[in-house]
């Protein structure tokens, strides 16, 4: 069982986390024309990289989303970063 790092709560058991999506995907602007293929890619196409991956996860107890970089082959967790910018 893996240990993931919540940027807010620190290292926690993987069962407390929920995978949301691969990072870097942008929702098409649906007020404009979006092709079937374009939408289907957004919904279904995953890079599913072997090796270093960037993903969006949520930590269920504190409910914060964050980006985690990890290695899908070695299962090493490389780093977690908050998605929050500085509060102004």
């Amino acid at each position: 069982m893996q240990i993931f790092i919540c940027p807010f709560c620190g290292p926690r058991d993987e069962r407390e986390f929920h995978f949301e999506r691969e990072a870097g995907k942008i929702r098409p602007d649906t007020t404009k024309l979006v092709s079937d293929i374009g939408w289907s890619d957004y919904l279904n196409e995953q890079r599913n990289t072997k090796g270093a991956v960037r993903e969006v996860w949520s930590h269920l107890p504190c409910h914060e989303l964050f980006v985690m970089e990890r290695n899908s082959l070695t299962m090493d967790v490389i780093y977690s970063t908050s998605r929050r910018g500085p509060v102004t």
Partner: protein
Amino acid sequence: MTSYRIDHGGLIDRTRPLVFTFDGRSYTGFDGDTLASALLANGVRIMGRSFKYHRPRGPWSAWVDDPNAIMNVKLNGREFPNCAATTTYLEDGMAARSVNAFPSAQFDVKGGLDLMHRWLTAGFYYKTFMWPNWHLFEPVIRKMAGLGEISRDVFEDYVSDQVHDCCDTLVIGGGGTGLAAAREAVETGENVILVDDQKTVGGGLFRTGLIEGQAAADWVEAQVAAIESGGGRVMRATTAFGIHDHKLVGLAEHGKFGCPPRLWRLRPGRIILASGALDRPITFANNDRPGVMSLDGACEFLARYGVLVGRNIATLSNNSGAESSARTLEQAGANVVTLDPTAGHACAIGGKRLRGVELNGAFHYADTILCSGGQTPLVHLWRHAGGKLDWNDDLQAFVPGKAPEGMIAVGSANGFFDLQHALDDARAVGADTARPNKKSSYKLTPLWPKPGSKGRQWIDFQHDVTIKDVELAARENYVSVEHLKRYTTLGMASDQGKTSNMSGLAAMAAVLDRPIPEVGTTTFRPPFVPQPLALYAGQRKATLFSPLKRLKLEPEHRAADAALVEYGGWLRPGWFGSGDPTEHIFNEVQLVRETAGIFDASPLGKIEILGPDAEAFVNFAFYNTIATLKPGHVRYGFLLNERGIVMDDGVVARLGDNRFVISCSSGHVDHVRDHLEVWRQDCNDPERIFVHDTTQHWSTVTVTGPRARDILEKIDTRIELAADAFPHMTVREGTFDGAPIRVARVSFTGELSFEVSIRNTYATALWNALLKSGASIGAGPVGSEAMMILRAEKGYIIVGKDTDGLTMPHDLGFTVPRLKKKAAFIGDRSLHMQVGNETDRRALVGLEVDTGSAMLSTGAHIVADGSKPRTLGYVTSSYDSPTLKRPIALGLLEQGAERIGEKITVWHLGKTVTATVCPPCFYDPEGVHLDA
């Protein structure tokens, strides 16, 4: 009797005899015995029948590597299958049954199957899929398959405890090197845990002579004392069964027979693997006969249990370790002849009773053949952790190569078979100092299965795989080890190939004429030995898995004789009153239609969305346009997922410019909150939107029925209740007893309704006030069952019951936002993909049965008539309507909207009835009652 108990030695307590039975016959063993050692002590050698050919089988070895002696064991009225006789400690009153044998292992009526072996080769099972017809063989194969029988009783209390722990150093294996390494680690001040799967630590030490000048038992005791006095922990009868991601070690701590093992999830800083090595079998003709055993195993039976496995023993060994073993057995009273199997062809002679061994044509009398084909390091856990293996040509074995992070192997697990060398090395590892470099004196002549040689030679005893099966697999081009494994099922039995994998891949290497390391190994996966699923489940079930949510008003409901039932995780009144529920439910429906009912709707979602971007966010989250909703108003709508599928429905109340409350379905609140939270943070500025779930902080009491207003009027809410001042689909804020309340005019029954929400602290007072007010006009409390009928009469859906994983909002008649909504919303584009545009989508319909017919069954299929029946949809909700005095039903039906008025066929459990498709609303379709 061939095997027997000698009059001294062993770790058993001879003052504590234990009585047990095997295949109905009674025997006596001692405390400390395993089932296998006790049976051998009684001269019983045949302990089971083989999986495929029903060949008689006895134990091959004395511990986890035995593939043969699998039993059903009953104790205190509970029977457990898959018990390995060699690892099941004997308890008084145990009743063991051999498996795959009837009436007993000694006399098995299916023994004749062995004569059919030509037709039961590898892939037999797969070939029946192709020809002549799998169904001819299926009943027979299903009956033959498996070892043992599972008890039909459910043991509710068979629940494992689970413990989380950590330490600096975990030592796996309590043999000589494990103890030595652990002691050193403790002495450097580390927090150390040593685990060993036997009750008595010491591993194979008891079968050797003096250790560093001490008797084995004394040496072991000294190490354990040093470890424990230094603060280390020694966990006995505890199996390290797997190493998982991020170095999580799974330990199963075993107690008495029939008790669930305890799971330890251990996170050590480092792991010292001292798991030892196994003596591997030699492949020769009839090498599966009872009495052909592992040499180490035989010595283990002698050392630990005082059992001599034979009187006239022939040893077949290719290595230098065998000589001292033979002398030990001789000293215990056996006649031993040592034979060299490396040059020539061997064959075991005899059937149930072994008569001898033939080697290169020469017959040697023996009642027992003990084999030692070289040591195979136990590298399972090493591989679980991702460690690499190297082929060691001198040892003819795979040994640990490149180490996984934080793990190191010592002793015979690392291929160090000289005890003193291994101890010195383990001490260096334990103390984390430089390891000594020494040359091994262990010598071995390669000896592997020889394809093409005579006789039936077993590779996998537990799954009945012979060398001919490996040859057949190679002929049929299953040459990769992973294919070989699956085609022949080699190594796939419950012993996971501990004895068979090396022989199997060596046989394949020989067939293909390639070196063993080129053929490679199959993947090692946890668990190292079988574990009950209860171990992994632990306490995580029922309410400990999903805690029941309780109503603030539960004491009031109990006092009112409510039948409390779980709905969507909440314990809620199903109806009020004892006795026949049907009558109560009917009465409650009528009460709402004629007077008014008072309903505890507290589980209804109350998710507040606040902040400057709240309007845009709610508008994006909902299928329906919310941006145009004015403060004080309420709108019904759907939440979709990004695939356009209806995830939930509910009403949105706008309390202010920047404040909304989403009342989603009671059972979906957690899911909806998580969904909104993810979208809030993932695609929006989380500083400008706040999602605040107040569901469990506020109670909601719904007053519903034609006289609802009369009830509410009698309590002071400071809200103008008249229809023109407070119309349907609006929301007002007021007070009750000084506390803020929120009243929404929304209806789930089709009647005039007020949903009154209040902080939990005031809920009891509000409930009692409304009940008191209602009582004066004959109104009273109603439960969830009545609400289910009331909403179905009105055609109001429950998402997840009247919709499924394919339902889009236009299937439910809500077509406008799909075509007209300008702003983006979750799932919008999916509604216009090909799937959303299909003309044969399933739509919500009502279903009417013929006059006098019974109600339809929920889940019944709506089928197309004709020669090729197919499902057009199904019944989602069905009730006897007290209001309409006839059955009503809702369903999802292909092209439902176009079929209104059509007769359709409904199929359920082989019976068909007809029904008529109608609009889904059965009661007050004009909505006169709603607007009252």
